């Protein structure tokens, strides 16, 4: 009898000990928990430009070219205006898009004429509105290509952004806003060569394996090269400018409309453009440690 009781007692004590140990271990595990936690964060980024002196922004227009499939001037103005309306504190001025290529070409004319000799009946002064206060014509005798096909064609047009008199006059017209302008080159490109891709193969034992394979591919797509120029409408002076380059390539058989490629590439650039004018939050995750 006694012999039976004793083991029961000792079994009970054993259960208690096991339970206590389990509880202790559980408590320890809860107290310790994982040693790290992944946490989402939003890093605020200050704007690159101090836009506090401005209440309004004028996206004036762009010197654009590269392809005739997309009117890069019009599309860029529309896109940037709509982005600024929703993501910036500045009020967006709705105005006709400036035909900047025509303006630059108009500016180039007097210099070209002056180069060929004095004009009859002329005073020898500027005939355009863009050369007030004795400012020289922007492109100063440089012949401007009528159509922009590549970087070389766009380069002589860039002098227009240094024509402070012209931009000051535009600024006065719209009550001294911040002016956004620049150049946009959107052109087709094709590239062929070897591309490395992972491919699934079956080995001799019938197992699936992923192996890198090199294959020759012909690809075509588009390249987008915008330069955004920010001009102080009060003075006509350039405050800041930044250039970008983005490209996209598809299989040669794939038919992608130029306009959708344009928006795909602009989508990548818009956050950078906006970060010049307004504070942005960059989302990410970090690991907190114990």
């Amino acid at each position, binding site marked *: 009898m006694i012999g039976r009781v004793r083991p029961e007692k000792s079994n009970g004590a054993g259960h208690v000990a096991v339970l206590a140990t389990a509880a202790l271990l559980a408590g320890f595990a809860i107290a310790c928990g994982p040693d790290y936690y992944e946490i989402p*964060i939003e890093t*605020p980024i*200050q704007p*690159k430009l101090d836009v506090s002196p401005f209440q309004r922004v004028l996206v004036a227009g762009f010197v654009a070219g590269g392809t005739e499939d997309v009117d890069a001037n019009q599309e860029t103005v529309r896109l940037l205006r709509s982005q600024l309306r929703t993501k910036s504190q500045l009020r967006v001025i709705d105005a006709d898009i400036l035909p900047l290529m025509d303006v630059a070409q108009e500016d180039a004319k007097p210099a070209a004429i002056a180069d060929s000799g004095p004009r009859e009946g002329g005073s020898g002064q500027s005939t355009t509105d863009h050369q007030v206060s004795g400012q020289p014509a922007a492109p100063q005798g440089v012949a401007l290509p009528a159509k922009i096909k590549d970087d070389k064609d766009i380069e002589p047009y860039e002098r227009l952004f240094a024509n402070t008199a012209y931009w000051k006059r535009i600024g006065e017209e719209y009550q001294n806003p911040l002016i956004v302008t620049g150049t946009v080159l959107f052109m087709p490109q094709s590239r062929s060569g070897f591309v490395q891709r992972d491919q699934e193969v079956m080995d001799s034992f019938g197992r699936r394996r992923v192996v890198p394979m090199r294959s020759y591919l012909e690809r075509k797509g588009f390249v987008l090269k915008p330069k955004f120029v920010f001009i102080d409408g009060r003075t006509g002076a350039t405050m800041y400018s930044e250039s970008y380059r983005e490209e996209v390539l598809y299989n040669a058989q794939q038919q992608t409309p130029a306009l959708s490629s344009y928006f795909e590439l602009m989508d990548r650039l818009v956050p950078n453009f906006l970060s010049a004018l307004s504070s942005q939050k960059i989302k990410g995750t*970090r690991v907190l440690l114990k």
Partner: protein
Amino acid sequence: MKRVLPIVVASVGVVLSAAPSFADARAKARSDARTEIEFGLQVAQKGLWHEAIYRWEKATQIDPTYAAAFNDLAIAYEHEGQLDKARKAYEKALELDPNNSQIRQNYELFKEINDRTSAAREK
């Protein structure tokens, strides 16, 4: 000589008795800092980043050798847009624990944002 011997013995005794107390103090500091870190983790997960910064700053003061405290503080500074402070805290965390891949990964992600924005400002 007879006079010096007791002093030497006493000094050795003091040093030997003090040694464990330094270790104890250090362990206590680590434990206290860990308490602050854990509290900071709880509040950060609820979005109370200012309180988390307060706790983690305290943790780094209590135990200036605690890499995790500097890592967490750097993240909180980053979230608050205090990028200079974040960089210093990350660098301190890596100095204390150079082989910690999680701290390094956090720092790389931070640098990607910070370098991009400062490069843009230099343009």
